[in-house]
């Protein structure tokens, strides 16, 4: 065990932490992450233009391997073009992640802001509600809500959105409370600055950067979670192109035609990795200030 370095001073300890840090980031990696995410978003936006075939019409023979003429990523068991379907799947993944994160930030932000800035029984009640949501395994609740509303794109979104706000609520409340205890806000209270102005001018700007960082670090996990939901059939029904359901439908061909279920899964992995990198970049950029 002698290999353990024994930092004796505070400075050595920080350096040590930095050297063995989980992620040693450079500006280059950050930039690459952001550019890659921008590219993926662009591709998703342009999917109807760049996709060579319709995602829900037979485009050719079934089971063509990747690299076949006219079908860069091959075709699936029906004869759909996998590349075209994946482009549209990427589009729906990005769109749903954006919608869920936005709704989570808005709902969680409002709840946290009210709880943190008003305090008293409002704080107590709202936080009890938040704790209640956090007391359950989120993914199970999301599945149940999505199933109760009937399998569709919007049910899946609602299901995940229902469990995605409490973390933000707790975060925002904590931040707001720590800001509210600072001298300039105490001074504002004494000077009779009204609640709405204090929230608008002092509290909101204070919490924004923390929330943005957390939200951008969340995107990767959210994309993976939603693809899992789609995989077990809680997403858009059958022919609609979603990465999770494409993998589920291609599962039976795994051993003979591996690309049919594997490629959509790799698509999710790519999006999740890029989102994580970009999330780290956002964190680095905002925390450097």
């Amino acid at each position: 065990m002698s290999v353990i370095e024994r930092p004796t001073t505070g400075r050595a300890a920080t350096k040590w932490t930095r050297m063995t840090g989980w992620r040693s980031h450079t500006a280059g990696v950050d930039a690459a992450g952001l550019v890659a995410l921008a590219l993926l978003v662009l591709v998703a936006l342009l999917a109807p233009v760049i996709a060579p075939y319709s995602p829900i019409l037979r485009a050719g023979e079934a089971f063509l391997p990747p690299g076949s003429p006219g079908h860069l990523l091959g075709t699936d068991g029906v004869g759909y073009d996998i590349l075209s379907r994946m482009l549209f799947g990427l589009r729906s993944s990005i769109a749903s992640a954006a919608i869920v994160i936005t709704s989570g930030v808005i709902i969680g932000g409002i709840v946290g802001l009210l709880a943190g800035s008003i305090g008293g029984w409002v704080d107590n009640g709202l936080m009890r509600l938040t704790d209640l949501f956090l007391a359950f395994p989120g993914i199970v609740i999301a599945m149940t809500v999505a199933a109760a509303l009937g399998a569709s794109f919007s049910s899946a979104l609602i299901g995940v959105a229902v469990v995605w706000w409490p973390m933000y609520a707790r975060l925002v409340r904590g931040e707001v409370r720590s800001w509210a205890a600072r001298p300039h806000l105490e001074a504002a209270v004494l000077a009779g600055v009204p609640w709405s102005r204090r929230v608008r001018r002092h509290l909101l700007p204070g919490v924004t950067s923390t929330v943005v960082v957390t939200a951008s670090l969340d995107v990767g996990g959210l994309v993976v979670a939603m693809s899992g939901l789609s995989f077990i059939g809680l997403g858009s029904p059958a022919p609609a192109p979603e990465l999770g359901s494409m993998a589920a439908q291609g599962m039976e061909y795994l051993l003979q035609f591996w690309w049919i279920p594997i490629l959509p899964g790799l698509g999710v992995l790519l999006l999740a990795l890029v989102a994580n990198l970009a999330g780290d970049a956002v964190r680095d950029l905002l925390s450097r200030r």
Partner: protein
Amino acid sequence: MIMFVIRRIASMLAVLLALTIALFTLQELSGVDPARAYVGANASADALERTRVQLGLDQPAIVRYVDYLGGLLQGDLQNSLRTRTPVADGLSTAFPATIELALWALGLALVLGSIFAVLTVVRWKGAGIVRVVLLSGASAPTFLLTMLGLLFFYGQLGLLPSGGRSSFGSTSPGPTGLFVLDGLLAGRVDVATDAIWHLILPAACVAISPAVAIGRVLVDGLRINLVSDHARTARAAGMPEGLVMLRHAVRNSLGATLSMIGIQAGLLLGGLVVVEKIVSWPGVGSYLDKSVQASDFPGIAGVALLLGVTYVVLNTLVDLLQVAADRRIALS
């Protein structure tokens, strides 16, 4: 201390009550008619109406909720629309399979996470590679990992089975319903090893992302404690580095790690459902998958209730364990 235990258990009961209210409301929203589940799709309107009165479905919502709750307390999870048999029966055969898989996954997550954390902290040279593998594994959707695992270990190497729980039929040779344990208890080593071969792949795929989360918390804890004043004092007094690690770093990092394990146990459930579908594991996840395909809401609600209750009870236990380990928590 006793007050803390009582308060913690009371809040657990309140949370469970909220879960039943939520499930009942969702069932109302879903528009499922439980009477249908009893009489079948081809029954006459007359028979349907009779069953409805018989089941008390003509009563107002609050009365039905009380009925529903009463039923739950007696283990009645309503009838499945898919099989038209009680959901509780289907789940009671599926639950041991999921428990076994979950325990193995959690165990693997702990082992992987600790190995990973210790390697990182002692700055072993290969830790970087382990880190990259685990981190990208944790970013991948579970279904991709499982399919790649199957493709390689079953398709290419023929080393692991393609799916299922056992090559010795679907009933466990013992009382617990856990194949490995029952196999060992019954002296059937072949059954136990066969079950382990079936468990490895799905358990490992579910375990990777919790392993990373647990490893992270452990690394943070170990780092802080290894440079803390008390660790320095111990070293100054001549305590060997290994003992400092064990007594001062590991022990003090356990609290945070324990609560992370509680959180991860919940996240693990989502992975279980997906993996069970892929390797045809006859557990709760497969049951949920079939219920989803058949739009069988009572089946889905049963699974949600079972998993929700397991999770909430488990986390209460984790909290109580933490207090047992560190009494100061009960005071705050």
